[in-house]
């Protein structure tokens, strides 16, 4: 009898030794203004957890680590983020961190991760400024705001090297203005003549005055925009006013599916997007874009948006870094992240190692989508970069 108990105890101890876990902590905006986006992102992270645990865990240095996620609701509030990330590190003893959704909240979480020297992979945060503070532990997955429209400008240059005059028109919000400003600098640098650089107020519905200015400026292409409502209205009025632009690229609005409701006004409009389910990247590790999309659909019954893809990508990058490091030690994983240069289903990933911009995403490029017509129906096609595209750019559109 006594022997039996001992045997059971031994099996138990062995079992524990076998099932190693790595704890990853984050906060999720289950309530508040980022609710929808943040939960989407969490869905992606959870899917990654299921996927890797389904394979027995992350293979690190001959052992397999099961992933355990620890998360709390941050109510979309900065104060909560700071409290909760401290708690995740000091009480829950997590090994690694993933950021909350949004640049604002990530900036707060980054302060904590830096104080405790914990590695944090930032997803859902496109701000550049977080990575200009000399942080050593924070790594960005998204293309930063400063490069949102630069690849659009590259695409335009490739499509029509003779075109010179472009207009940059943006919504007067922090994000859009930052994007537009760096788009202008970049456009000038590669030889465009920025004939109009102008902001419009956030609640603008009448774009008449702006459109008259665009016409008067003689611009042949337009990049800019802001958020959904203004972008959709802008596109509609550009179409109604028959502004002779060869390319129209707007932030955010055309990337969402509702944009098709604009009908003919949507045709030809280009938008940068962090990721699209149809991209054709050749990944070095993890699932292919199609496999990820399929897994996601099976788990949640809908096509993943880029935020969900960003969530999965954050997990995958941490996993790859642990595998490369052969350890779950923070310093070794940090070194592996610094060295990382690979392509996953989400695109290319490479972090800046310059001390002034450490962790800033350098490899990932925005994909450009364009609304095109297939059998008389409006469809989103990926037209840039060339290694991800599903269709050729239609140019000029008018």
């Amino acid at each position, binding site marked *: 009898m006594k022997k039996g108990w001992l045997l059971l105890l031994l099996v138990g101890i062995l079992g524990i030794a076998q099932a190693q876990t790595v704890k990853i902590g984050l906060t999720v905006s289950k309530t508040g203004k980022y609710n929808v986006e943040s939960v989407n992102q969490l869905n992606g992270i959870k899917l990654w957890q299921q996927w890797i645990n389904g394979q027995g865990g992350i293979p690190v240095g001959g052992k397999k680590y099961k992933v355990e996620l620890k998360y709390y609701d941050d109510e979309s509030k900065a104060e909560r983020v700071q409290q909760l990330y401290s708690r995740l590190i000091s009480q829950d003893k997590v090994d690694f961190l993933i950021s909350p959704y949004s640049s604002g909240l990530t900036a707060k979480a980054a302060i904590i991760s830096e104080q405790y020297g914990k590695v944090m992979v930032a997803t859902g945060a496109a701000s550049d400024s977080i990575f200009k503070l000399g942080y050593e532990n924070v790594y960005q997955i998204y293309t930063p705001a400063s490069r949102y429209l630069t690849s659009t400008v590259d695409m335009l240059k490739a499509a029509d090297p003779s075109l010179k005059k472009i207009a940059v028109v943006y919504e007067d919000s922090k994000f859009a203005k930052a994007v537009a400003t760096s788009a202008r600098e970049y456009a000038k640098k590669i030889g465009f003549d920025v004939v109009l650089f*102008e902001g419009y107020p956030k609640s603008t*519905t*009448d774009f008449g*005055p702006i459109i*008259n200015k665009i016409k008067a400026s003689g611009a042949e292409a337009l990049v800019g925009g802001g958020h959904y409502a203004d972008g959709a*209205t802008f596109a*509609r009025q550009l179409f109604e006013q028959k502004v002779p632009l060869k390319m129209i690229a707007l932030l955010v609005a055309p990337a969402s599916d509702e944009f098709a409701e604009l009908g003919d006004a949507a045709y030809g409009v280009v938008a940068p997007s962090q990721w699209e389910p149809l991209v054709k990247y050749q990944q070095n590790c993890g699932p292919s874009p199609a496999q990820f999309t399929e897994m996601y659909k099976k788990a949640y019954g809908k096509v993943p948006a880029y935020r969900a893809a960003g969530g999965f990508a954050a997990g995958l990058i941490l996993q790859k870094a642990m595998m490369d490091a052969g350890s779950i030690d923070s310093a070794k994983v940090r070194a592996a992240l610094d060295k990382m240069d690979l392509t996953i289903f989400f695109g290319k990933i490479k972090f800046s190692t310059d001390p002034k911009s450490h962790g800033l995403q350098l490899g990932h490029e925005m994909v450009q989508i364009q609304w095109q017509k297939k059998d008389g129906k409006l469809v989103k096609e990926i037209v840039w970069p060339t290694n991800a595209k599903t269709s050729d750019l239609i140019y000029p559109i008018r």
Partner: protein
Amino acid sequence: MLQIFSSVMDGLLIGLVYGLAAIGLTLIFGVMDVVNLAHGSIIALGMFFLYLFFGAGLHPYLSLVPVAILGFFFGVIVYLIAVKRIISGPPLMSLLSTFSVSMIIIGIGTALWSTSPYNINFKVETYNILGYTVTSARLIAAVAAVLVTFGLYFFLYRTVLGKAVRAVANNREAAELMGIPSQQILAISFGIGTMLAMLSGALIATLFPFTILSGGVYELKSFVASVLGGLGNPTGALLGGIILGLIEGSVAPFIQISWTNVIEFVIFVLILLFFPTGLFGGRK
């Protein structure tokens, strides 16, 4: 040159629609000294009524008729419930009361339609006149605004009921002594003011996308236009609207668009200081 011409034309066309909204506000003030803070949300409601009729398959311009009828009765109901009992009280009471109506409309509207933008998606023709591009929607909205204004004048000056409205506006007690049932006249006036606000909202909805919160912008413009034209003076309000539209259009080529509001409100303050009864005189 062409740009300035385009800007001025655009400003004129949209200004007529602002003017119509301002007439709705100024009429109610002129007749009963009530500053209707529900004006903006009523404009937004007009947009959504149009959206509902359009959704039911009616052409947007045909939908203006049921929107106008609904607007009139809606106004009468609001008057009877929220304005009638306090009309002789201090001005603050009617301010608070109409503000509450506004909050109720926005609350219900948010629950029904959320605050996301809606669109009236119908076929719009584009005309090119010597390089100036204009859409049929803008032309029709401006023409409709003018027609409704003519209609209002015909009503006020050529019908017995309209004359009664003017009499009550002039001197309620004297009008009552002459046997005019002032309560009914006030209800009718509030109904007409509301109808005009809803019509202007519906016309704006044919041009631009809207949310249940969109009314706020046009409420502000209505205030500025009414004060420009002299509070209580419908013609003044229409002209005020046109001036507002012209300012918006004509300053745009020369400054950053974000500055338009600054210029608009600086002019507003100057008018209040130097022409307290507006450019075209107060109540007539």
